[in-house]
């Protein structure tokens, strides 16, 4: 796979420069250049929400900085954690005086760094809380749920927590709702091709021309099985089997569902998969609310797909449908 870039070591900085140049009304750079904040951050009196993680997943994480979403985001190199200082800067710029929720994916390095960053800003009297996304059902059994990786469920958590903060709720409430959103999401993916981390210069893994890997993580972490390519309906069926076994649904349940491309897989193929998603949810008697089909959480040019089911109650559904806008997504 070929990449359009200048120097692999300036990939992320060049990207951020372009992002802020294209959308100055949305984004601005803060801290040492590796923090992106809402153009109007901090919003006085509003609970701030920050996220952070490696680059290469646009729109996640950086892209979701915006009204009704994140206030700031710390950005590492491609697939690498940002530094403690960058995370602390993100927290500072997000702080409108009502405290800051750290909302991000469960990856060891990110967790240690965000904890350390929290220790740092505590000395500056910024109250912080943490909610981790651990939605990838392929990465640990439900009994060890807290060990799961965080993947595309973040999209729902950002949206829902962002709406709660925008509505003026306090840090404790925003944190409670964010945790409920995180707990309501289950995800699983399948990868068809690797991607290339610019600084590494070669694909993150190799896989046969006729092979796929079920359950693979968004950085190429191992999945459940690797084998021959299956048909779209088989892939969709297996992903839905796993998700519904992990988080059973009953008639009358309301869910949103995200059919997400990891990058290269075109929307045409997401819609082919969506048919089965809808059939299975219909069969379970669940109603689909605001389905999302597209590229929401990616691994650069990796081909593959992930499904996320977010089970809703009235509170979550209200937050999901509330207005929000960033350069990559607009609701309402």
């Amino acid at each position, binding site marked *: 796979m070929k990449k359009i870039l200048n120097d692999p070591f300036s990939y992320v900085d060049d990207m951020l420069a372009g992002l802020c140049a294209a959308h100055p009304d949305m984004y601005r750079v803060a801290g040492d250049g590796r923090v992106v904040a809402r153009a109007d951050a901090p919003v006085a009196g509003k609970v701030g929400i920050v996220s952070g993680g490696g680059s290469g997943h646009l729109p996640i994480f950086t892209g979701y900085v915006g009204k009704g979403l994140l206030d700031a985001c710390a950005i590492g190199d491609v697939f690498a954690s940002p*530094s403690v200082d960058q995370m602390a800067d993100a927290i500072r710029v997000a702080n409108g005086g009502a405290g800051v929720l750290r909302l991000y994916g469960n990856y060891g390095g990110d967790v240690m760094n965000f*904890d350390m960053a929290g220790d740092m800003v505590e000395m500056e009297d910024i109250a912080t809380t943490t909610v981790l996304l651990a939605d990838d059902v392929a990465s640990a059994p439900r009994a060890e749920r807290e060990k799961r990786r965080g993947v595309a469920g973040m999209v729902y958590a950002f949206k829902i927590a962002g709406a709660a903060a925008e509505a003026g709720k306090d840090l404790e409430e925003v944190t409670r709702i964010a945790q409920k959103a995180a707990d309501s999401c289950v995800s699983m993916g399948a990868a068809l091709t690797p991607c290339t981390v610019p600084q590494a210069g070669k694909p993150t893994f190799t896989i046969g021309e006729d092979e796929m890997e079920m359950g693979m993580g968004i950085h190429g972490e*191992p999945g459940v099985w690797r084998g021959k390519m299956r048909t779209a309906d088989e892939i969709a069926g297996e992903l839905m089997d796993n998700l519904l076994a992990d988080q059973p649904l009953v008639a009358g349940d309301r869910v949103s569902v995200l059919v997400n491309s990891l990058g290269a897989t075109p929307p045409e193929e997401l819609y082919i998969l969506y048919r089965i998603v809808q059939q299975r949810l219909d069969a379970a008697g669940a109603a689909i609310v605001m389905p999302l089909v597209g590229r929401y959480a990616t691994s650069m040019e990796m081909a593959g797909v992930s499904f996320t089911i977010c089970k809703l109650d009235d509170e979550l559904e209200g937050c999901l449908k509330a207005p929000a806008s960033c350069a990559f997504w607009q609701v309402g």
Partner: protein
Amino acid sequence: MALTTATLKAAYRKLEGGIGTYFDELNSADGKLGDGDLGITLTRASRGIHEVVDDLPEDVGQAFLKSAQAVTKAASSSFGTLMATGLMACAKATRGRTEVPWSEVSGLLDQVLAAMKARGKTDVGMKTVLDPLAACAEATRGLDDPAALMAAADRAITETMDAFRDKPAQVGRARIFGEKSQGLDDPGMLAFRRIVDVLKT
């Protein structure tokens, strides 16, 4: 004789000169069970320290603090953050002193271990860098000669790695490889091994 900022400077310079030898080995060990960046992490950490090494103050505690900050900035992967956490623990324990007796090394390692456990939210026995570290703290207890300390640490690491090699990983990225990790050294342990290999030359 005692540990001073000069000792620290010499160690950092040795590390910077020698760790490159293991760049590929560490990346590929981490690549088998993680994201393949552990060689990069050590190189970045030692480059980060390079920026400050000439200016490290006489106060050993301040010297540790400055190096901890440098590592935090330069290497934000799990191992880098754990290193920075350990250096920070040393900083706290040696604050305000220009000489630290060698006999305190074992106790310092205890502090380092405790800080890393808290940061990593994990314990010894899970097949991580914490295990050889705990073994070194034990093995160096009561020693106050640098050469003897080094020899004891060296042995302790080898024994710990042998003891853990065939167990499955339980923490970090390696955990999800489960049985595949049996028979393979934990990358963080290997990194610790290589740091000591460089320092002992």
